[in-house]
C-alpha cells in the first residue's frame, strides 16, 4: 500500500508531494498507519468537491493505492478533517517518506 500526500496552493502555489510505501515500514508502524487511515475520513471525501478556495488557502490531496479500490480525497484548508491532517503530518514527517517540492503546475 502506498500513501501519497499532496500539499499545494497557499501563498506560494508550490507543490509538496510526499509518498510513503507501507511495505517499507515495520509491522508496528504499518498498524499505526492503518489506524490513521481508518480515522482520516477519506471515504466520505472520495469524489466530493472541496469547498471553494479562499485566496492563498492551502489545498490538499491524499491518495491511497494498493489497498482495495484506489482512493483520491481532496480538501481545502477550511474543511480538512482533523484525522486527515493527522495522517498527512505522520506521512510527511516519516523518515521513510520520499518528498519533493515543485513549482505550481507540477
Amino acid at each position, binding site marked *: 500500500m502506498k500513501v501519497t500526500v*499532496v*500539499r*499545494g*496552493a*497557499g*501563498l*506560494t*502555489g*508550490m*507543490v*509538496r*508531494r510526499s509518498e510513503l510505501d507501507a511495505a517499507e515500514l515495520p509491522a508496528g508502524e504499518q498498524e499505526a498507519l492503518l489506524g490513521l487511515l481508518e480515522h482520516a475520513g477519506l471515504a466520505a471525501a472520495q469524489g466530493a*468537491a*472541496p469547498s*471553494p*478556495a*479562499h*485566496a*492563498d*488557502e*492551502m*489545498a*490538499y*490531496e491524499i491518495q491511497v493505492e494498493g489497498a482495495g479500490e484506489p482512493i483520491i480525497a*481532496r480538501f481545502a*484548508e*477550511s*474543511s*480538512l478533517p*482533523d484525522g486527515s*491532517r493527522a495522517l498527512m*503530518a505522520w506521512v510527511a514527517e516519516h523518515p521513510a517518506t520520499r518528498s519533493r*517540492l*515543485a*513549482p*505550481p*503546475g*507540477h
Partner: protein
Amino acid sequence: MACCRIAPFDLLARLEREGTEAQQVAARRALAGTLPLRVTRLDPALAPPALATTAKRTVHDVAHGGASALPGRLVWSEGDAPVADDAVNEAAQGAGDTWTFYEQVLGRDSIDGHGQTIVSCVHYERDFDNAFWDGAEMVYGDGSGELFVVGALTKAIDVIGHELTHGVTQNTAGLAYSKQPGALNEHFSDVFGSLVKQYTQGQSAAQADWLIGAGTLVPSLGRALRSMSAPGTAYDGDEQPAHMDGYRDLPDDADPANDNGGVHINSGIPNHAFYLAATAIGGNAWEAAGHVWYEALTTRLQADSLFADAARETIAIAGERYSSTEQDAVAQAWSAVGVTT
C-alpha cells in the same frame, strides 16, 4: 511597541536634533513630507508612549489549533503595550503598516473601506507553512523550517500587505479566485503588498527590490516567493512567466498541484507590467502607478475580468488622471508583456 504611527512634528524635530544619524536622516525626510516615520524604528526612549492612530486591530492566539479554533484567544488590542510573543507584535505591526498605507496613500478606510477592524490570528496549527486571508481575518502559521523560515511570515510586511489586499479585492472587484481572474487577484495582492513595503521603507521604484516575501523561504530554496522585476528568478524552480508567451493554461480542478488554475504562475505577467510601468514613470511606485492600479481594482474591474481588461482600464485611467507620459508608460508596459487590449 508602538505600531505604525506617524510621528508628530515635535518628535521629528527633536530626532532631527538629537537622534542617531539614521534617525536624523529619517526625521529630515519625514519633515520634508516625503514619507512617514515609523516610531517602531526609533529608540524606545525617544518614542512617546501613545501617538494618535486611526488603525483598529486585534491579534488572537490560535494556540496551534486548526480552523475550528479560529480566531483563538484575544491577546492584543489597539493601544495595548507589546506582549512577550513576537508573532503577536509583528502581526499587529504589519496590519498597522498596511492600514496606514491604504489610509495615507489611497484614502481607503481599512480592508472594507468602512473602518473594519483588522483581526490577525497567529500560531495557527503546528509547523504550518502558510499565511492567508480567510475572508474575514488574517491567519498565520509559524512555518516549519522546511519551506518557510520559522517565524518569518509575521515579519514579512509585503506578505501581510499581499494577504490583506485579498480582503480589499474581495470588497471591490471581487476577482474570482480561478484561472486568469485569479491570477489578476494574485497580481493586485503582489502590487499592493510590494507597495506597502516600499512606502513603509521609503523606497522609490528604482530602489525597491520588487521581491515578494524576501527572506521568508529557507535559504536553500531561494531568496523570495516571486520577483516582479524578473519573474521566474525568485527561487530554485520558479517558473513564473514575464510574458504571455509563457502563459500556463492549467485547469481549476481542485487538484492542489494546479493552483486554482495557475493563479500564482500567470500573475508574473501583469506583475512585470506593473514593474515596467512604475519604473518607467519613475519616482515612488505608490504614487501614479499605484493610484492607477488601485482605481482599476476598486472601480473598473469585476469578478470575471481578464488581463486585457486590466490593461485597457489602467491605460484609460492613466490618461484620465495623469498625462500622456504616464499613459504611454502603462500602455508600453502591457505591450511589453504581450497583453493586447
